[in-house]
């Protein structure tokens, strides 16, 4: 949010040529990592993110185990080379906060009470980052959890909306995130109208906020279909070898 870079041109096209309510190219793959109990990979614009799910499994250290439900743990990490200036390998405060909100975005969808005294671990590795990594991570993590056979109330689907040159736009890319006037990541269980992640940064009037939320729901609907498709094709392709990244 620094300078007056022009992000939307006269014809209403964004800096990467998209319309205001247009998603970036999106691709999911499910079951790409052999060791994990479930896994998924997402490319959304320039984002490339791998997710592995391990569990339900034993909890170490044991005193963290819950007698009535599984313990959900999430780690969101960025590869050092995923951004322009090499990121330090030690996790920063941003990665720790995002790990927390991702966990709280996924948790409402999971029937954790089915697996008391176990842990379900979700490991997210951002290999290349281009804005909206937390949302892309959530959409991919939901697939990895489904792939691991964890029973869910619904998938969780996420997208960031934002304010750019005064307009509400869908699925911010890195430049829009950096130079725009606002960023609002949203995650939902789409068929339950349940918002499981909501953050915002920037300035939004109440009206803009409502508009942004509507746009997010629209984008989430589209992504949700792609997620379901990816799950279906996983089971069609079940016998193939994956080398997708």
């Amino acid at each position: 949010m620094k300078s007056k870079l022009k992000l939307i041109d006269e014809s209403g096209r964004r800096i990467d040529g998209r319309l205001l309510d247009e998603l970036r190219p999106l691709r999911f793959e499910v079951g790409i990592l052999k060791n994990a109990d479930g896994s998924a990979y997402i490319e959304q614009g320039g984002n490339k993110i791998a997710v592995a799910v391990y569990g339900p499994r034993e909890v170490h250290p044991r005193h963290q185990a819950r007698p009535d439900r599984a313990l959900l743990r999430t780690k969101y990490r960025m590869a050092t080379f995923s951004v322009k200036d090499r990121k330090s390998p030690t996790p920063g405060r941003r990665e720790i906060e995002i790990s927390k909100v991702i966990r709280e975005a996924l948790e409402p969808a999971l029937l954790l009470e089915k697996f008391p005294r176990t842990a379900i671990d979700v490991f997210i590795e951002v290999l290349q980052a281009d804005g909206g990594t937390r949302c892309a991570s959530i959409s991919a993590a939901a697939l990895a959890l489904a792939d691991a056979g964890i029973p869910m109330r619904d998938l969780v689907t996420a997208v960031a909306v934002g304010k750019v040159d005064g307009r509400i736009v869908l699925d911010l890319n890195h430049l829009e995130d950096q130079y725009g006037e606002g960023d609002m990541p949203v995650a939902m269980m789409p068929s339950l109208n349940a918002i499981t992640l909501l953050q915002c940064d920037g300035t939004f009037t109440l009206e803009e906020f409502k508009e942004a939320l509507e746009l997010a729901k629209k984008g989430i609907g589209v992504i949700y279909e792609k997620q379901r498709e990816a799950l279906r094709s996983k089971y069609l392709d079940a016998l193939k070898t994956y080398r997708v990244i």
Partner: protein
Amino acid sequence: MSRIEHVIPLIKQKTIRALLEKGERLDGRKPMDFRDVEINVGVIDSAEGSAIVNLGNTMVIAGVKLGMASPFPDSPNSGALIVNAELIPLASPLFEYGPPKEEDIEISRVVDRGIRSSKLIDLEKLVIVTGRKVWFVYVDLYALNHDGNLLDACMLAAVSALLTARKPKTRIEGDHIEILDEKEPIPIGNTAISITFAKIGEYVVVDPTYEEELAMDARLTICYDKEGRIVAIQKGGSGYFTSEEVIDLGKKGLEISRKLISKLPTPLSE
């Protein structure tokens, strides 16, 4: 033995919900009542700005320190803001010393976002020599007693300390920067206030106590600036909100923030 429970007994959880059904709360408040807020500023002489906030039995202290440093490479024309919240074990048996936990970090980052997005401090006025020396503004927050809603208490304390903070004047002669004894207010451009809601079952209350936090399913914090614009949001907890709830709380929060904002100290720079 300690008076703080880590888990809420089922019976109390039932009581809380039964009361909410009637629009009541354990401490006698209505769902959309904020607790009494008391703010004392200028309490720490060694800090450039400071505030103690009592929000019911929740108590938080904020101190502002300034340090001269080289600007970050990607913002040579800007000072820097660094917010750091510590939930120290003095405040609750839930907390331990050690590297910052995710709760500490979440509070730090939401307070930071609220201050930053609202442009409460005009960071560009904190440049001493362009590209070479700027002021770093450190806002350090310590929880002193935790009875719920630390986030709003921290936001109130951080903002109050900043609104009343002073920075030394400087004189530049050639390559040398002299820090003068004379001080002036730090440049203030806006204000920020956060309102936190807790969803307990199908009910939503504002400014939850610790007991209500134990009983809650999800949390929603919305920060507003003095124009009533939303400058930061953070959903927390393992539950969810419907989109109708979220929009409704956006409005309710705005009303509450307008009342609360009057409790903030007048900026020194006004």
